[in-house]
Structure formats: C-alpha cells, structure tokens
C-alpha cells in the first residue's frame, strides 16, 4: 500500500513576489535559477532551482504584491512510480485528490492531495507519464 514515493521532488516556497524571492535565494544559496515561467491558466509566476534531485519552486502571483517580499514554505511534491495507482490508493482511503493532469515539467503528470496531510499542501508527480509524440 501507499503512494510508492521515491523521493521529494519539489519543495514549494510561496512568495508575494516570487521573482524577487527566487533572486534573493539565488544569491543566498549560490544556486542558479534554472527556469522561470508563467503558469498557464493562473498566470502565476514560477521560478525553479535544483539541489540534487529536489527542485525548489518559487511561486507567486503574476503581479507582485506591494511591499517587502514575504515568503513561506507552502508545499511538498513527492515523486511516485505510478501516479494513477497512487491516486487510486489515496482515494480509497477517503483522501480528496485531484485528477492527474500534465505538470509544467515536460512529460510529467501531477495530482494534488487536497487535505488530510497535517497542514502540508501535498502533490504527487510522475515523470515520463506522458509518452512523447512520435515524429511523423
């Protein structure tokens, strides 16, 4: 039983100004920002850095809020072997889990666990879950 987690894939840091917080952590930790993007649909600003296999994701509104940036730890994403099986397992236990959908990481699918995790926003991600399109 369980979700078949292999490792912590993401730790999310939510900020009122995610670009500023990402740049601040880049200087603080000496780790480069690898990618920035706007999340399709929500317009949220995302920035990513990587420490070995774990991604630090900085997430914030598309338009930074006024004032000094305020950030907090705001989520953990576990990498799983089979996202559909993991979602099925949690739903059987009564967890409210969103439908797996394509993640911002190419080829990956992600599903959000919406409660029952002791105050920690959790999501599950599986890489290689979406087959690459064959070239014609």
């Amino acid at each position, binding site marked *: *039983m*369980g*979700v*078949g*987690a*292999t*490792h*912590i894939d993401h*730790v999310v*840091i939510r*900020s009122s100004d995610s670009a*500023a*917080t990402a740049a*601040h*952590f880049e*200087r*603080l*930790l*000496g*780790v480069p920002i690898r990618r920035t993007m706007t999340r399709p649909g929500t317009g949220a600003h995302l920035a990513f850095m990587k*420490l*070995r*296999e*774990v991604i*630090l994701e900085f997430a914030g509104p598309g338009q930074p809020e006024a004032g*000094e*940036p*305020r*950030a*907090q*730890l*705001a*989520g*953990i994403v*576990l*990498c799983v072997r089979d996202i559909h099986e993991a979602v099925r*397992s*949690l739903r059987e*236990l009564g*967890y409210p889990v969103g439908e797996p959908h394509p993640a911002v990481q190419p080829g990956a699918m992600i599903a959000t666990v919406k409660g*029952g*995790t*002791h*105050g*920690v926003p959790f999501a599950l991600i599986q890489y290689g879950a979406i087959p690459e399109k064959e070239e014609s």
Partner: protein
Amino acid sequence: MRLKRIDHVGIVVRDLETALATYERNFGLRRDPNRGGELPALGIRNAFIPVGNSDLEFIQPLTDEGPVANFAKERGEGQFLLSLEVEDLSAAVEELRAKGYRVSDPNNGIAFVSPKSAHGVNLQLIERR
C-alpha cells in the same frame, strides 16, 4: 557556500503519533526508528521519515514557548523549516555573514539563517559528519 542537498523539511504537527500514523499507513512511508525522540531542551519531540535522499521531520511542541510552539499557535500544523546540508558549516556561516545575511552561531553542527534574511522562510544549515 557548498550546498550538498536538502537534508530535511521540518513539519510542525499537533500530535506526533497521529501524524506518523497518517504518513506511514496512508502514504506508505516509514519512520527511521533510530532517530528522533524527546528533546526537552528544545521543548519538542520529533521523528524522521526518509524519502529518497532527504527526510521529512515531524515536530510536536511540548511547551508553550519557543519557535515551534509559536509557529503552532500562529499557523497550526504545516511546514516550518527547510534544512540544507552544507559541506563546511563554519565556512558557510562566515560567507553568508560577509554577504550581509544574519546567521546564528554554529551549534552542534547546525546554524540558522534569520527569517529576516530569507524573506520570512526558516532556513537551517547543517553539517553532517
């Protein structure tokens, strides 16, 4: 500063055994029986669940005072701290202070970056021996 990895994510919970039961039974994770316990000097008890090369640390406050108790009072349960393993803690503290960041003195292989220097995030630096 030579960062090696994310060592652990600290999670404040109201009741340690309840939280561990949730993550063990429902998520299929397993606590490390050789680490954790009651730390009266810190007013907490804790336990670690390894996930890949990092851990989830579950922390229950045992008193009404201190950073963990204050977090629990203000926010309830949730992510409290991000711990980063560094190659050389003294060198890391020295380097960060030279850049103007506020960092505590190393103590038992651990130092804390002031949240004021991290946009409000609790960051711990740890050197494993």
